[in-house]
């Protein structure tokens, strides 16, 4: 059940680089655990604004997070620039699970792995709704 330790960058079709900042380190000298979750959120948001092309103003629905998980394998520290990688995992009627791996500058192995579950909700009613077909097509193209 630890296959995620073998995840490699090339297993993921969407990558984004994120610079760390001084304030990301905590008093133990490495990125605070909360910041790893921020990196996971960042790659998901960049995917939704990039390939998925969601427009929060225009679209009649938007995604909200219902679950997130982060495993910590290696320490990351300011000032390194990290690479956060995403692929689409399981999809349901209205939800998608993104699988995430975060890599430090000099490492083939992930420093962190986890997942992030989005549910699409109708902007007016705030209730869940089927993933719009255009989004589903893109999501499926990023499944591995």
């Amino acid at each position, binding site marked *: 059940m630890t296959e995620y330790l073998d995840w490699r960058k090339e297993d993921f079709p969407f990558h984004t680089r994120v610079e760390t900042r001084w304030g990301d380190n905590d008093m133990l000298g490495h990125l605070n*655990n*909360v910041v790893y*979750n*921020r990196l996971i959120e960042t790659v998901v948001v960049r995917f939704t604004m990039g390939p998925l092309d969601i427009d929060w103003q225009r679209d009649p629905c938007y995604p*909200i997070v219902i*679950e*997130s*998980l982060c*495993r*910590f394998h290696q320490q990351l520290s300011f000032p390194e620039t990290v690479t956060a990688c995403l692929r689409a995992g399981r999809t349901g009627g209205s939800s998608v699970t993104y699988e995430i791996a975060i890599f430090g500058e000099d490492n083939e192995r992930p420093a962190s792995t986890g997942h992030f579950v989005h549910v699409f909700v109708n902007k007016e009613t705030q209730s869940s709704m089927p993933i719009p077909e255009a989004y589903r097509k893109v999501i499926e193209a990023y499944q591995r």
Partner: protein
Amino acid sequence: MSAPKAEERPAYGYFLELQSRWMDNDLYGHVNNVTYYSYFDTVVNYFLIEKGGLDIHNAPVIGVVVESQCNYSQPVAYPDMIHCGLRIGKLGNSSVRYEVGIFRNDEQKASAAGHFVHVFVDRETNKPVPIPDQIKDAFLSIMKADAA
């Protein structure tokens, strides 16, 4: 890997009340998902300091996080008061699984619930070590409270 279900206050043996802050809200107008993890590490560390006598600046043994998870049921938003419930899910020799419930104001049902796993390591060598006695006693004290 099943998450704890959203639960009620009596399921938690220790509480810490936090004032949410303006910056906790995101564009959706409620507390950002990542901020919940900040509530988690605040209640866990406060518990270790208050009940376990942890000296965060000098202790030879520190807790490092190996996994965290959160399930979001209902939003919370600034200026809500955040009541963080804490209990011990699993106690090992050098690791502990905390389970945290996030309660909005006086609500009895958790708005979010998750877990946080610490491994205690030697501050110098980074190698796992047994949980220090005073901290272990603190865990046992709220485990008994859970059972009561």
